[in-house]
């Protein structure tokens, strides 16, 4: 089973990376860019076929390691 975990910064938390990338895109002349915020994705292969269990396991993974829940939100999607 494949899953994707997306971790993004909470609203209001400063994102220095996003800010620098935003500036770079503007100076490269990319049209219309107003703001950029950067996050992470984790593409995870899982053994087993139970989607609910997989989801629980990944939520635990986020809480424990993948996301810094003080400043980040996460989302778990279970794929095919």
């Amino acid at each position, binding site marked *: 089973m494949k899953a994707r975990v997306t971790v993004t910064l909470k609203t209001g938390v400063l994102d*220095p*990376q996003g800010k*620098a*990338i935003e500036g*770079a895109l503007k100076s490269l002349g990319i049209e219309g860019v107003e703001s950029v915020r950067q996050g992470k994705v984790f593409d995870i292969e899982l053994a087993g076929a139970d989607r609910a269990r997989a989801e629980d396991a990944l939520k635990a993974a986020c809480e424990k390691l993948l996301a810094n829940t003080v400043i980040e939100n996460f989302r778990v999607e279970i794929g095919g």
Partner: protein
Amino acid sequence: MKAAVVIFPGSNRERDAGRALRDASGHEPHYVWHADHELPRGTDLVVLPGGFSYGDYLRCGAIAGRANIMDAVRAHAARGGLVLGVCNGFQILVESGLLPGVLMRNAQLRFVCKMQHLKVDRADTPFASAYHVGQVIKVAIAHGEGNYVADEDTIDRLEHEGRVAFRYCDADGHVGGSANPNGSLHDIAGIYSAGFNVLGMMPHPENLIDPLVGGTDGRGLFASLVDHFAATAA
């Protein structure tokens, strides 16, 4: 030797590079701002110094690799001009397409700063003539993303063409194993361009130019460059 050190926002070893160049050549280098479009007239050597250009945000060297001045640096290299990229400078060279491969996060996922031995792989270049092949030198490393990775073809080509400049080794010159501080493929610490006029390396020869501060094994690189230009001028 007329050297130009490029300053990007977030460069932080430009003075270290400047000191090494001054020490070797007796001349202060020019400092060139990233937003400029041209190198100073008559530039022999371009140095891309260490640091965290643009905070190393996105990917190390990525944003700097697309700065205005890099067009001029590419043109300089295309003319056969010499370019030295150290640490962040190496990352910028790779991101700007002047050298192949990528520098990924260190295998142990931590920044590492320490003295490190290197084996000189090639000494018949403008950058390394003061060394001899197989010589073991002690320099400093200070990076979080120095893990050199490239596809098999690229690595084969680099090896086949003899473009590996330095490899990580231990004090006795043994390459590989725990002497590799970051997981680089083939223990690569630095590589040349196909024309041997562009050198990118993670270690910092510019911090090893003084017996009081760690040693002088880095001087050879700058002395080689001075010799090279003295010879071409003669």
